[in-house]
């Protein structure tokens, strides 16, 4: 599975009442290329904070489905944040980890992810449903199920290393925040 296929699938299948928070680096930049600011918060910088931003939104906007998308390197950087998610258990949070066992944005250095069963730990910490998927159709089945059944859900998606690198970067970050704020105001 390629990173881009999963991201395209997320944006294709997500419901109207959802937003995507994407991590800094290639994942966020690829999301930004796909949808710009359309219900998408591209978190440039503050690596690791996707799940925490998602938690802050999810607890305050229970009718909005918050989809957090990050890599294995990113989740390992703020692993403690999963504890707070597991304690507060927001039903409207879908946490997707694209796992290529590497820091691909910075040149493909290995992460510790192959040694850590991320979805098992998420389960222990209190996520309602946790799983790992290896194919796009498995991912789509799990993602649709998460939208219907609620969570918090944790989906580890095993992807290949590599992918497009020539990707855009946003220049106006305030615009991104304003756009999400405006969307959330309506819910």
């Amino acid at each position, binding site marked *: 599975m390629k990173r881009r296929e999963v991201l395209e699938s997320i944006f294709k299948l997500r419901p109207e009442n959802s937003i995507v928070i994407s991590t800094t680096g290639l994942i966020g930049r690829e999301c930004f290329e796909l949808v710009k600011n359309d219900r998408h*918060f591209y*978190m*440039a*910088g*503050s690596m*690791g*904070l*996707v*799940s*925490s*931003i*998602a*938690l*802050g*939104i*999810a*607890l*305050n*906007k229970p009718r909005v489905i918050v989809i957090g998308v990050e890599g294995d390197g990113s989740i390992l950087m*703020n692993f*403690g*944040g999963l*504890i*707070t998610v597991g304690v*507060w258990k927001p039903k409207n949070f879908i946490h997707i980890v694209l796992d290529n066992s590497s820091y691909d944005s910075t040149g493909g250095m290995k992460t510790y992810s192959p040694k850590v069963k991320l979805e098992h730990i998420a389960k222990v910490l209190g996520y309602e449903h946790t799983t790992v998927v290896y194919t796009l159709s498995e991912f789509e089945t799990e993602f649709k199920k998460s939208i219907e059944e609620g969570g918090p859900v944790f989906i580890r998606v095993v992807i290949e290393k590599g992918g497009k690198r020539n990707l855009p970067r946003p220049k106006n*970050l*305030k615009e*991104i*925040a*304003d756009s*999400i*704020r405006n969307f*959330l*105001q309506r819910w």
Partner: protein
Amino acid sequence: MRDGTYKPLSEDIRKERAKTLVNVLIKENIDFATGVPCAVQKFIIGEIENSRILHVPSVREGEAVGIAAGASLAGRKVVAYMQNSGFLNSIHDINSLLISYHIPVLFLVTWRGAPGEDAVHHLQDGKMFLKVLMEMEVPFFVLSPHNIEKGVKWCIRKMTKKEIPAVVVIKRGVF
């Protein structure tokens, strides 16, 4: 204090001042709190916990910055409490997320390592803390016993107007 010690405050005074501070937060419509505990802010955090402010404690200050950002984007008026040790630890998150995206959050930050500090591991943090705030160009106000209400209100006004974080500086011996 010049002689290197703090005048010990009675619990009653600490509680009264904490109550004054949290009452201002409530009057100013702060309705969400997150953060990491600090002994100096013990009674402030207690007052927050017993108020109608939704309180989601975090396990680390950087995480608190993320939770605060999310809550603020969702339309809440947010306070984040912590020690300067944790604030300094989270500078990149504050810079890249709150300042760059213009997300307002009110910080209550204890200034450990201020003149008179007896815990030497705080001294380096304390020496640079206000200078760092100046370099970050965030509004900040060092509270004294007589200007608690004024200082907190000023920070909230600045944070709302500029859509950036503002820092209420809490000193040992005042709270």
